[in-house]
């Protein structure tokens, strides 16, 4: 049964936004109890605002009743980000999906936060959205900003924060603020606070972004590594020689798990830029790989797009054994990638779970993908343990968790990052004294 104050708040919201914008039925509430993490938490109510005034009203009312509000985009989070783990009202932002402004010359756009990646990709013929984390284009701009989402193409374009110029946010008090560049440098700090704050400081209602142009020329390779450490050597060469890398992603154990045997790791590396440069870089890269006796061949660009944009590698893993997958996303210093991979492998064999590690040398991004049988309760439990183990091992290696995906309910604690937790909690206390905004995520109270 739903909590009393939450129901009161929901009733007040319904009288302002309209009955059809507040969902109280069991069926609807259950439909907002999951994301892509496998975690469940049923909200007391779901509200569906259609403009910034609606959002402000919802947040102000919830704050008055002391009821948690949980912003939700498309619910593709891998870490329980949009789930009401401490109860409360889920705010479904999908109806706020208008394109407010766009400029063909500069690629600048202003969009409401419920706009999805697949819609951004329809806006310009010669520009695109390089960050498409779920591969289907279903994630929303609000979710991407809140999680500071990343993709293999982050090697060239950075993470979501690097595409954002400004945001409009509804603070936990219900106040609406605009935090935007260009402007005085101090504003960077305010914007930086909101980017990647996982919906704990406010609800993003619209954003000002810039989509980059599609590069003039591209060439890609598929590379077979018999030792993953070689991928770091390749990365060093690529950096030293200033090659324009679009993406470089390595799949350790992929051949073994998906195809039943083969090289230790398969990788995709794409070079992009001006045609002459790309040709030069490509022959140089090929030369370097040959000198290291690393097997490689030129790849079809559409195949590589499947890997970058449609996340085919990840999905092939999920498809391969009719299993379910559990993804843990982390970041380590590139020279420690080998150690991280070993830790993940060790965890996999200890827990008797097949595991593929995806890592992006230019980013130090490491994703452990465990495969498990969803019908076997014990295995489901073991998978959860494996994930927690990988997180703690990564931290003891000096790495961090939640790159791209956010940390969600795997909150960052004092012993993980004291500086961040101290500063962020003070900011949180100041902006959200009642801790109503997405509590239980990102940091401990």
């Amino acid at each position, binding site marked *: 049964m739903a909590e009393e104050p939450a129901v009161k708040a929901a009733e007040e919201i319904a009288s302002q936004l309209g009955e059809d914008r507040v*969902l109280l039925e*069991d069926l609807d509430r259950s*439909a907002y109890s999951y994301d*892509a993490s496998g975690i469940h938490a049923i909200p007391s109510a779901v509200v569906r605002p259609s403009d910034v005034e609606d959002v402000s009203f919802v947040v102000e009312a919830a704050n008055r009743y002391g009821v948690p509000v949980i912003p939700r985009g498309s*619910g593709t989070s891998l870490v329980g980000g949009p789930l009401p783990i401490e109860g409360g009202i889920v705010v479904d932002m999908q*109806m706020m999906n208008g394109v407010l402004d766009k400029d063909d010359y500069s690629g600048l756009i202003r969009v409401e936060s419920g706009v999805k990646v697949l819609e951004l990709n329809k806006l310009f013929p010669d520009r695109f959205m390089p960050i498409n984390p779920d591969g*289907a284009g279903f994630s929303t701009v609000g979710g991407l900003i809140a999680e500071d989402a990343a993709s293999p193409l982050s090697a060239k374009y950075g993470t979501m924060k690097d595409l954002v110029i400004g945001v409009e946010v509804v603070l936990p008090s219900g106040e609406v603020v605009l935090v935007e560049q260009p402007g005085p440098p101090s504003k960077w700090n305010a914007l930086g606070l909101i980017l990647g704050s996982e919906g704990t400081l406010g609800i993003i209602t619209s954003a000002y972004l810039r989509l980059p142009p599609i590069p003039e020329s591209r060439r890609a390779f598929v590379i077979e590594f018999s030792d993953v450490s070689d991928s770091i050597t390749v990365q060093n060469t690529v950096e030293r020689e200033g090659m324009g890398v679009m993406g470089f992603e390595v799949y350790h154990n992929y051949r073994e798990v998906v195809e039943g045997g083969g090289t230790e790791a398969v990788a995709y590396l794409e070079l992009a830029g001006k045609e002459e440069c790309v040709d030069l870089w490509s022959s140089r890269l090929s030369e370097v790989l040959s000198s290291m006796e690393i097997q490689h061949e030129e790849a079809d660009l559409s195949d590589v797009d499947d890997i970058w944009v449609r996340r085919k590698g990840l*999905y092939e893993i999920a498809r391969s054994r009719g299993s379910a*997958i559990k993804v843990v996303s982390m970041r380590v210093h590139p020279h420690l990638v080998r150690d991280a991979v070993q830790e993940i492998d060790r965890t996999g064999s200890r827990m008797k779970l097949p595991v593929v590690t995806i890592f992006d040398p230019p980013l130090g991004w490491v994703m452990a993908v465990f495969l498990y049988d*969803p019908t076997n309760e014990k295995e489901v439990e073991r998978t959860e343990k494996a994930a927690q183990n990988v997180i703690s091992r990564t931290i003891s290696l000096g790495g961090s968790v939640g790159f791209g995906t956010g940390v969600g309910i795997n909150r960052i604690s004092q012993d993980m990052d004291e500086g961040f937790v101290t500063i962020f909690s003070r900011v949180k206390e100041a902006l959200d004294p009642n801790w109503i905004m997405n509590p239980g995520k990102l940091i401990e109270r």
Partner: protein
Amino acid sequence: MVEFPEHLIRELGRCIGCGACNIPCPMFHVEDLRETEGARARIKLLSMLSNGKIELTEEFLSYTFTCMNCGLCSSFCPVDIDVFGVIVGSRSALIDMGYVPLVTVGMRDVRRKTGSPIGDRITKGVWLPPDFQPEKGADLLFFAGCWVHTVPEVALAANKLLQKISGEVVPAGTNEPCCGGLLYVIGEKDSSEESREELRRFLADLSPKRVVSGCSLCANMFTDLGMEDLASAIEEALEEGRIKTKSLKGKKNKIFLIPSCRSKGASERILRSIKNADVIEVPEWVCCDCGATLIYQAEPEKFDRWLRRLLDIASSMNADYVIIEEIACYSMIYEALEGRNKVKGMKIVSFPSFLLDHIS
């Protein structure tokens, strides 16, 4: 607790919740992107039901049984879960466990009495002479499909159209059995199989050289029946040069095509080949076929919202024509619009009627 068969539990458990299956889901779009209505929620809620996180209520039961049944969700799942297959399989499993929603009971009974799940609203073959009997061994047998019998003029148009591509066209007539497609999507596997078996015997008895179906659900869902869908048969004749398209009058005419959900693209290609026809690109979730019957009967207000949304989009794109490929779908829309064939200045036409005027 509801115990689903092992293979369903596995498929439900494999869902990673990415939401890709919501992208083509008409229910999700028409109901303003409300999660509950989308394909992902259908999978996730069934999964929650199967592991005891939620209870089976009357409301949940009718929810599970009513969607547009377009099947588009299956082709969007990146981990190859046959999303629609799992939904249909769960319906069957619930029926096997004795949980049958009222609308399904109704259709099952109607089928028992009349031979068709919508037999209470149709009289088969009113467009044919009262004593009509199909001849055996025809060049082309026209299997009309249940719904077409509510709009005789479309049945006649389809029949005439087929006469342009084949010498001798014989309608299947008043005793045409139902293919069982609709029963299949609502999880009534036994009665669907009985229906299909009856049709198989019927076709074997008439032994025509080829069979073209006005209902694309029948032709494309049960390929073992060896029926072609109407659009594919027309496209083949166009390619072989047996018929030609005629140009549309006047300047470019904007066409908003509602394709059949199981379309192989023939209808769109045919329309694109017509001079002065400007076929508008429609969102991926726009389609309709006989599978919509369930929502049309059980939740007519949802069907109306869907129709209104489609007509609004068509009108915002300045369409001159809204062309509906699937005859069953046209029949439902025709009824819902109370026979009006012009809305917001757009002509609402069935694919066969439109083609009859633009093919020589």
